[in-house]
């Protein structure tokens, strides 16, 4: 069997990413990676000037760290995802029965060394690494519902 090494997650803490993570702490991971699942797909017109397009907002209406205790998980039952101005999806935060390992191709370490070296090709083959282990996901299992977009205009 061809063998592809799978490296475990590096334990380097990424506190900076955690501080600027706008999601509730439960959904924060050391790398900042989180999962969001929705029925269907997000389509938007390409905007070349940006590296990303803001398509909407996530709202956790029941989440209030000032009022709720830390172990209070009722807020997980309700998440809204406003897409564009007129669509809203209702969803929830779900604890995964089986956590997901987020895997990606490992960037060859010391790439610079290889390039700067005397042309000795280092072809170690493909390697994978676990970037993060995610235990929760935001799930929108229902189709979007139309909402009025008047308030958004005034912001």
């Amino acid at each position, binding site marked *: 069997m061809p063998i592809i090494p799978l490296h475990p997650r590096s334990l380097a803490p990424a506190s900076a990413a955690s501080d600027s993570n706008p999601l509730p702490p439960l959904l924060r991971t050391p790398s900042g990676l989180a999962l969001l699942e929705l029925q269907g797909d997000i389509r938007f017109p390409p905007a070349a000037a940006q590296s990303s397009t803001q398509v909407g*907002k996530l709202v956790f209406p029941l989440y209030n760290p000032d009022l709720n205790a830390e172990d209070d998980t009722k807020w997980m039952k309700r998440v809204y995802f406003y897409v564009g101005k007129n669509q809203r999806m209702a969803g929830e935060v779900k604890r995964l029965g089986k956590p997901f390992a987020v895997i990606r191709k490992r960037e060859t370490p010391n790439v610079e060394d290889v390039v700067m070296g005397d042309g000795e090709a280092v072809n170690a083959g493909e390697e994978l690494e676990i970037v993060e282990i995610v235990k929760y996901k935001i799930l929108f299992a229902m189709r979007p519902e139309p909402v009025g977009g008047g308030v958004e205009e005034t912001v």
Partner: protein
Amino acid sequence: MATQQGEGGVPFAVAHELQNFRLLELPPEIVELLEAPNPPPFQIRQVQTSNSVFVTQPAFDAHGNDIPTSTTCAIASCTATLELHPADTPAVAYIEAVLPVYDIVGGEVDAIQNDTSKGGVFADVPLSSGQCEQGWAEVVAFELSGSSYRPSVNTLRQVWSSINAAALAEGIRLDSQFLGYDLAEMVQEEGFPAPLALAIFSHLASAGQDTSGQWSCLDRRKTVSFVGKTLLQAKRGSSGHLVADFVEEWKDSLPEAWRGDAALKSIEGTYDTPTSTTIVAKGISASRATEAAVPKAAAVKGKWHERFAKTRK
């Protein structure tokens, strides 16, 4: 809700250049299994999802002329997830499925070349090298002229007979050290592949015997049992054969000194006795077991399609 959309919401963006991530589902058992001294292999099954699954990352983005804000940005979209399942199919079943059978009928070789080396065969089997080796040895597989084969029971019977005859002619005691290469060459002169003879030596080697060198040494008990099973399985017809005749043939197929070892108890569990005086091989061959397993999977598939069809009505 509309006000919250403006105030408390977390902006959600989608990156234009999505990265490649895979999501691997981790069963709870895997942690303890990974900690086990001899972790079992897992099969990976890719499961397509009709939903969009985004991997998101916090970003600090300014969209348009807005002041930069903390945003959640989708950096990858996964259309499939990977599930882990303990690999419970024995290695021998995989090896049998991928190797062509080497049969000899009336002195003519009947085999389809697969032009694949042992290493090439192993590359297609989703098991560890150690397990592949184990399955390879179990089916007495061998390489010949760039192809790999597993012998039919009938072939094993003929090659064993040739080995036994050559050993007798040369005065070789098979349960003490002998030059396996030399004996294999004699077998080859009879028209059988030398690598198959060597594979049989290795299959029947005494425990702890290094089978990689030119020396061989067979385990007497293992060999007696192997010869008995091979003879019985090579017999066609399910009506049964006279036990007395079978045992006599078995004795004749063993080195003279081992004749007394041919007793049914050494092949226990591999035969049925339709009557008190007849014997027939049990359907123990793993190849039959695999054949049985395949239609089972197909049946499940069929049911799924039936169910699917029902929902469409």
